[in-house]
């Protein structure tokens, strides 16, 4: 069965390693923070100007001057630092963030990503996503494999305005985990529990590479 958004977040949390500085985008990526194993030490960056983001505050402890990039009220952990938004993106552009997790509307087999605009219909703005995808060393995407009307969102080429070119390294969808190969193509690494390779082939418009036995992902 396809994963729900919590399942995707849980699986992505396994990609976070001890000592990492991590930037989490809005949406599913934000949920990843809840599933990072407690035995590893991670610093979450919020691009509005915070390194060392902690849990949501208790009701008594809400501070309107302390929010993350999704405008949610947050806290800081020991060792946190605050800075302005120019310094925040200096940090991002200089490649100091070990892992960046973003949502996407579409991803192409070349690693292109679109996540900020549907012409004539919806404009969210790119926010920090264009800076992140242009500079971060390690970008992974959390997304639904198909649109609500059943169209694949893992494409040969993005149809929507791009956020960045050749930048996505890995895709985590509700159906599986995919490497994006340097030469192009989604290489299937893992299936969501109960999802068949056949279903994934059906659901993927972009070039899909299936080699050998594809294991089911393990989610605790």
């Amino acid at each position, binding site marked *: 069965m396809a994963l729900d958004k919590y399942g995707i977040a849980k699986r992505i949390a396994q990609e976070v390693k001890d000592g990492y500085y991590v930037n989490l985008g809005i949406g599913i990526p934000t949920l990843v923070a809840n599933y990072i194993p407690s035995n590893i030490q991670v610093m979450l960056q*919020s*691009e*509005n*100007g*915070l390194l060392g983001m902690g*849990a*949501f*505050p*208790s*009701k008594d402890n*809400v*501070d*309107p*001057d*302390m*929010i*993350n990039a*999704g*405008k*949610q*009220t*947050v806290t800081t952990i020991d060792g946190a630092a*605050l*800075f*302005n*938004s*120019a310094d*925040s*993106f*200096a940090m*991002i*552009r200089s490649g100091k963030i070990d892992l960046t997790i973003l949502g996407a509307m579409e991803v192409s087999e070349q690693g*292109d990503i679109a996540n900020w605009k549907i012409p*004539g*219909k*919806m*404009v*969210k*703005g*790119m*926010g*920090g*996503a*264009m*800076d992140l995808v*242009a*500079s971060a060393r390690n970008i992974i995407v959390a997304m639904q494999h198909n649109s609500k009307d059943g169209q694949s969102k893992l494409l040969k080429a993005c149809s929507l*305005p*791009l*956020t*960045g*070119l*050749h930048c996505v390294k890995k895709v985590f969808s509700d159906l599986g985990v995919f490497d994006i190969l340097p030469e192009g193509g989604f290489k299937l690494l893992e299936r969501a529990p109960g999802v068949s390779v056949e279903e994934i082939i059906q659901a993927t418009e972009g070039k899909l590479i299936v080699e050998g036995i594809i294991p089911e992902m393990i989610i605790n």
Partner: protein
Amino acid sequence: MINKTVQHVDEAIRDIHDGATIMFGGFGLCGIPENCIAAIQKRGTKNLTCISNNAGVDGFGLGLLLATRQIKKMISSYVGENHEFEKQLLSGELDVELIPQGTLAERIRAGGAGIPAFYTPAGYGTEVADGKEVRVFDGKPHLLEHWLRADFSIVKAWKGDTAGNLIFKGTARNFNPMMATAGHVTIAEVEELVPAGELDPNEIHTPGIFVARIFKGDHYEKRIENLTTL
């Protein structure tokens, strides 16, 4: 001591004219100059070009000036959950220039740092690159981006002193410090205004040289856009 204090918000914004370009500090509703926004709304200044990462929400922050159609053009990075903004953008009523957030922050910083242009990788290969010079450094394409300056910058700080020095709090810092440097006239509203000499020079985020006028805001609602608790 050089004294930048003005007594009232109306004195601070006295010369903001129709058609002015104004930078507004803040990210979402966090760290926005609430008092100046309200006063500009009351004053009815029109045809403004506003530079701000977001544009508030419906009914608060810059959303107030969008609702009254005082804003002709927005230069922002995220429209987010502001329906009035998105509506005016999609209908073409509002002229909108959307800029990657890091590029926006850096262009404002450049404006205050006397750097007329710089190269950044953000936006290469996207519509943001349209019409821009592309140059390759270390094998990677970059876009030439120009500084941003404004007739007025309006920022909100936590503490300030009469010499114009500012200290921000938490993530309410965001775009405020860069904007303070990039305004021809920079206006700062603060929660607490102290005599020069009371702030530790080592803890100041914005040196007073950048601030033309400073005043203590009457009241801060500090509305929360997205309350999340455990």
